[in-house]
């Protein structure tokens, strides 16, 4: 099990200024697995997600102690370029955030800046990415229309397609369905299930049913600590920790 892991978080403490958001986190994420991070608001699960592709770098005064190993390298080592890390580890945000450009340009934005130039290649990439995000059939005739005209659920799948167009190894999802209606949510969940064939997915969610439905492993966070990290089935049927049980049965949080 260990040798199948793609990201290893080792003894990580994380600070915003003087506030310690994460304490002593050690966990590993397996390849081609969906891992869910759950816990009450402010427990640090989103912080953990965002430090996996160094998005927390953008926050002044944030500081990490420990190591995050991705493919045998500590992504916090001095010689690592965060831009390269983010190319390999994509991200989908809570609120759909397409660029105010056409659907086509949204997908090609990243690849173009990384040297994909030929029109044919770009077109293929757009189709492949949209197919993977199960959006192709809905938008194939309106690729030049502004992404802002799509519905929220379609926008979110477009954002997923945009992330996939960079051919990342890992896709991080920060509460990707919390701004969506139940039907769109169901579509995204189906999509996640298909994506794990080719990608490693780490998803933060407030929705415990969602974690139970889509993930193979689940980590429960509370007050900046990883309380329990187990197979999803175990977490939701027979957790080792009392706190986990209290949380998933709705006794607090």
């Amino acid at each position, binding site marked *: 099990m260990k040798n199948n892991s793609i990201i290893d978080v080792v003894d990580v403490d994380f600070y915003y200024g003087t506030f310690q958001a994460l304490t002593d986190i050690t966990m590993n994420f397996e390849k081609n697995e969906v891992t869910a991070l759950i816990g009450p608001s402010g427990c640090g699960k989103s912080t953990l997600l965002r430090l996996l592709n160094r998005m927390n770098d953008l926050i002044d005064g944030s500081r990490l102690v420990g190591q995050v190993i991705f493919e045998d390298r500590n992504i916090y080592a001095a010689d690592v370029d965060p831009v390269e890390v983010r190319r*390999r580890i994509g991200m989908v945000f809570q609120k759909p955030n397409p660029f105010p450009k056409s659907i086509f340009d949204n997908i090609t934005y990243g690849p173009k800046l990384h040297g994909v130039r030929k029109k044919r290649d770009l077109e293929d990439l757009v189709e492949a990415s949209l197919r993977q995000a199960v959006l192709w059939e809905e938008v194939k005739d309106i690729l030049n229309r502004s992404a802002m005209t799509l519905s929220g659920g379609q926008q979110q799948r477009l954002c997923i397609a945009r992330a996939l167009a960079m051919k990342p190894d890992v896709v991080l999802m920060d509460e990707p369905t919390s701004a969506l209606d139940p039907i769109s949510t169901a579509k995204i969940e189906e999509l996640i299930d298909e994506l794990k064939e080719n990608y490693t997915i780490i998803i933060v969610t407030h929705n415990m049913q969602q974690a139970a439905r889509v993930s193979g492993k689940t980590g429960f966070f509370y007050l900046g600590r990883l309380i329990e990290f187990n197979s999803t089935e175990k977490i939701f049927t027979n957790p080792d920790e009392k706190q986990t049980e209290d949380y998933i049965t709705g006794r607090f949080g």
Partner: protein
Amino acid sequence: MNLKWRYLKQNLFLGTATMCVLAIMVSLGGILFYIVENGYQAVNWEFLSSPPRDSMTKGGIFPAILGTLYLTMGAILVALPLGIASAVYLTEYARQGKLIRAIRLGVNCLAGIPSVVFGLFGLGFLVVFLQFGSCILSGALTLGFLILPTIIGASEEAMKAVPQTFREASLALGVSKWRTISRIVLPNAMPGILTGSILGIGRAAGETAPIMFTAAAFFTAKLPSSIFDEVMALPYHIYVLATAGTRIEETRPLQFGTVLVLVALVLGIDLIAIVIRSRMRKRKRW
């Protein structure tokens, strides 16, 4: 009773606000009407296309129109890149802290400095120290410095208005910070930046004090052939005709005609900027 009182209050405030708007409209309309009424007779093709004659009591203002156009364009050319670059640094790169607050305060102070101070600075630094002499370059630089704070402020506001989620989305795709700024932030901020620039253009075209020591000639029929030539300029021409000429009363129609042309010119430049902006807005929407 209580409800009636609320309606009364509501109408009272609505009335006051409407009156304020009306007062502004009336005074603006009054000024414009006064200028047009006194100036339109002086404006004809000869007035627009020929240089002044007979100690500037007759003839046209073509050199001044051209001079003001050059100076205004030059000021924009100087201030827009500098202002946008400064705003990019202040909003996107600089760590928000005491130093940045001090710089911002300085920029705001710069905006409040009387224009004659800029004129004197231009004279001392550009004309004399750097030995540019009184010319388009000195005048355009001085005007550029004058409108720089306006453009920095407008650009900063426009860039702050670009949703943070756009930056995050771009960075999360493994796009570098500079490219995120140049491909996402700036294009989306451009309409706002142009709005601010419109204010700057109007100011640059209309100022007299900054150019009277640095660029404007009392009279020259010769059109400038390089940026190191002196030019006539509309605001200074008006000033000269209205105060320093020998026949102030006699040239009154010319003065109003020149004012009318200056106002029309500023409106024209604004209009171009507005058209560009609305086109950009149509493309960019969120």
